[in-house]
């Protein structure tokens, strides 16, 4: 059952009933108390031996030592892992940088090659073709302009 204790506040019986139930159950609880006291008295009634707290001190020292050992072990593990991973980290960085450098150089070379090819002069035998090409470009521009005009007209209407 996972109910909150506050839910029972309204139905709680009076304190007297809680503190000391009556009847057979009350007697049973008193007997239970007497039995628990008797069971504990067997051991606790003996006089406190000399150096009784020494065992507790020893346990505390052992616990502190264990904690220190755990901390040192954890630190050593982390350091070991870092040391093992260091070469991988160290090598991975220059390789990436070199790849980027190489890629940049390739791009530049390709652009230069394209520029050179485009800027080459046309041989004299191909000059009419060049003129024709220029004419085609001009014609297509004119056609586009003429096509766009009526549209504009329609829009204005």
């Amino acid at each position, binding site marked *: 059952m996972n109910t909150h*204790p*506050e839910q029972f*506040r309204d139905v709680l019986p009076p304190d007297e009933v809680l503190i000391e139930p009556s009847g057979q159950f009350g007697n*049973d609880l008193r007997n239970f108390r*007497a039995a628990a006291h008797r069971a504990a008295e067997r051991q606790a009634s003996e006089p406190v031996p000399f150096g009784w*707290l020494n065992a507790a001190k020893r346990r505390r020292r052992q616990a502190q030592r264990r904690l220190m050992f755990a901390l040192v072990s954890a630190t050593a593990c982390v350091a070991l892992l870092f040391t093992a991973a260091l070469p991988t980290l160290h090598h991975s960085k220059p390789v990436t940088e070199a790849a980027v450098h190489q890629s940049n150089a390739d791009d530049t070379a390709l652009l230069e090659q394209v520029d050179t090819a485009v800027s080459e002069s046309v041989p004299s035998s191909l000059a009419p073709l060049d003129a024709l090409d220029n004419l085609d470009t001009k014609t297509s521009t004119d056609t586009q302009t003429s096509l766009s005009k009526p549209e504009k007209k329609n829009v204005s209407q």
Partner: protein
Amino acid sequence: MGHMVSTELPPLARAESVLELADFDEVVRLYRPRIFRFLMTSLGDRDLAESLTQDCFLKAYTARHQFRGESSLNTWLTRIALNLVRDHLRSQRMRFWQKTRETALDIVDVGDWVPDGACSPEEVCLQQERVREIWRSVDKLSRQQRTVFLLRFVEEMELAEIADVTGMNTSTVKSHLYRALRIVRERASGKSEGEQ
């Protein structure tokens, strides 16, 4: 919100409590049986209870200068013992594979007690069986219910004192006590009716 009932001691009693702590050997002699009893009934293990009793008094000795007498010495020591029980149960959950309760308190051992007064052998047997049944029922209560039940019905603490020891509101203590009583009563009566 439940209200907290103050268990703060008057100034004279505070001073007496602090003075009482000055003679630590006497404190151990006076309070060791109570603390041991509380730990033994809470954990159900004699050796563990003895170890934690030692730990409790070592902690109290180390922190004796921090004790201002705001509560009684019994309440203060019981609070330390309860914290040790909590710590132990938490660490036990972490080490669930370990076998625990090697020196567990035997229910028969607890029930092996003869009531006062003139009773017939049959009555003695019946009462012993009822005590064992209550013990079994208490063992099955939740941790908080068991703590409140034991502090009330074994250590005979007042509700305000229990609230002070456990850090709960008095109304929460009452709720736990009510539910614990209901469970123990139902189990104990159900069992005895079933036997008859």
